[in-house]
């Protein structure tokens, strides 16, 4: 039960965690993240890394689509920019991973700004299609600019390294990916405590009024694009280090749709929702795989049906959440929390 949490200062009132209970649970969660790789088997570790990457990318797309209201079908393309940047720099320069990841984010942000430039004239779904065009061009560049991207064969890269330590195992990658994911989610949370985040939301809710109230639309739309694609770039860079190979097919259009689906299923314009959505959507194929494996002894054909079933479940989740739970998993989570916040004194 949460009562009597009156605050003495505005600082305390605007803190992210406003009660000791919340701080306690969050500390417990961080501890669990830390202990997880020590207990988990290889498969769970692999999943943990995948979820971490997905959380970063989904948070990025959430900033753009969920908070600023600019729908983007280019997320996979931006991730590709990050992935190729990391691959190229690690192959040609041998820079350590913090530098390559930063470069990946920055280059993706630059591309994001370029893609966002039409956003002042082009609105709504037309903008979505502009981002679609961008992802077509990016895919073309990945496939055709062979001297840099290695063409259809792509690039293979060395494991990430820093101060002589190489991160060749999933176990070690976990300690890059997950802390970075936590950090980047917090950074996003911070943005929405300041005027920049408010400007984003204002643009989403009523762009014209926002402009009259003093928000430079182009500037903030581009900022949102830059921030979002920075996140995508870092996620793409981690993806490259994780799989140690990038090809044009590593970042297909369906990946952009995957991330949009994660944002929607999780809850648009809700950072917690983005995290839940990313985890949920990443784990669904895995659950389906387990199910298929369990069914194969009885139905030898089961593996054939897995990929189409996955398509159907993806589609059904998108449609179902939009129709029945437009605020996504985050809303479900809040309902559960509300239930327990008064428990056991329920009326």
């Amino acid at each position, binding site marked *: 039960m949460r009562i009597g949490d009156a605050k003495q200062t505005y600082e305390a009132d605007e803190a992210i965690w406003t009660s000791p209970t919340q701080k306690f649970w969050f500390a417990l969660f961080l501890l669990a993240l830390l202990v997880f790789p020590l207990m988990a088997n290889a498969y769970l570790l692999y999943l943990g890394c995948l979820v971490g990457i997905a959380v970063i990318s989904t948070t990025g797309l959430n900033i753009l689509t969920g908070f600023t209201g600019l729908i983007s079908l280019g997320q996979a393309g931006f991730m590709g920019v990050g992935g190729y940047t990391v691959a190229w720099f690690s192959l040609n320069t041998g820079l350590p991973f913090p530098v390559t990841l930063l470069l990946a984010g920055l280059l993706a942000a630059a591309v994001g700004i370029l893609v966002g430039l039409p956003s002042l004239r082009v609105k709504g779904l037309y903008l979505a299609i502009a981002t679609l065009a961008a992802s077509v061009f990016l895919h073309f560049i990945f496939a055709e600019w062979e001297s840099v991207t290695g063409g259809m064969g792509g690039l293979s890269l060395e494991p990430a390294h820093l101060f002589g330590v190489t991160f060749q195992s999933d176990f070690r990658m976990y300690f890059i990916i997950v802390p970075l994911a936590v950090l980047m989610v917090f950074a996003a949370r911070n943005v929405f405590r300041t005027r920049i985040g408010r400007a984003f939301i204002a643009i989403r809710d009523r762009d014209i009024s926002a402009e*009259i109230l003093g928000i430079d639309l182009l500037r903030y739309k581009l900022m949102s694009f830059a921030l979002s694609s920075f996140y995508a770039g870092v996620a793409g860079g981690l993806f490259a280090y994780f799989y140690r190979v990038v090809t044009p097919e590593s970042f297909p259009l369906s990946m952009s749709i995957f991330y949009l689906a994660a944002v929607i299923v999780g809850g648009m314009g809700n950072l917690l929702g983005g995290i839940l959505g990313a985890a949920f959507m990443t784990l669904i194929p895995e659950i389906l795989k387990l199910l298929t494996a369990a069914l194969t002894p009885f139905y030898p054909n089961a593996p054939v049906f897995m990929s189409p079933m996955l*398509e159907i479940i993806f589609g059904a989740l998108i449609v179902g959440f*939009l129709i029945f739970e437009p605020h996504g998993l985050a809303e479900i989570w809040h309902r559960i929390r509300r239930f327990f916040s008064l428990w056991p004194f329920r009326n």
Partner: protein
Amino acid sequence: MDWLFFGEISLAGLAMGGLYALIALGFVIIYKATRVINFAIGEIMMFAAYLFLAFAGGLEMSPWVALPLAVLGGSILGGVIEKVMIRPMLGESPISVVMVTIGVASILVGLVELIWGADPQLLPRFLPREPVFIGEMYLAPKIAYGFLIGAALLILYLLYFRFSRGGVALRATASDQAAAYSMGINVRRVFNLAWVFGSLAASLAGVLVAATGGLSPQFGAIGLSVLVVVIVGGLDSILGALIAGVFIGWLETVAGAYLGGEYRMPATFAVLAVILVIRPYGLFGTHEIERV
């Protein structure tokens, strides 16, 4: 430069463009009446083409029976999608509605793969096989006859919207939903009708396109080309859909023939990007006045 080759390629491209125009028309009908951008149009085409495959191939019906049945199936599918998944989204943000159509597309791809498998298939031949010559230029018969059938439906549509009661209701709803409603037009029915008609056009085009190029669960990607067409032409413009359809079909084929298949998409998307920058509402689309 080999002008004959260029002419033949252009001709094939224009014929393909005619089919794009038909699909784009279906897209525009849906958009005009309901303001929904239908990302699933390629998948509806695909579904109809698979139905044709099932009727003509699996059940060994005459193709001329299978074709109307498949098109009917596609139209019913459109109507069902509208009723079950689009109508509950009435009044939601356009982003959400578009995402629903993307979800529908994903479901359809999965269903098709589940029923007919993931391998590419060929449709039974049903169009005449004698080569067609226009002057000296050769045109593949399936493309030529496909174009003719498509053009016939297209003209039928235009006449229907111009003169029939349903067509007038559709246009009235497109120009002002509230006014149309108050004049006793059943707007819900019009919405449903628009989806049925739009899917009908797409379904016929789907069978015709699949008859020339084969069919696989990736067939729906053609929806991307159609998207380019309708954006270039203007989402709410039938004239734009026709002109842009023919042009994009031509450009895609020519780019594919001269530069290689990998240039088809970038070429048309480059046109799209230019149009978006200089005329954000397409060549013939309406620019809506914004209000505070």
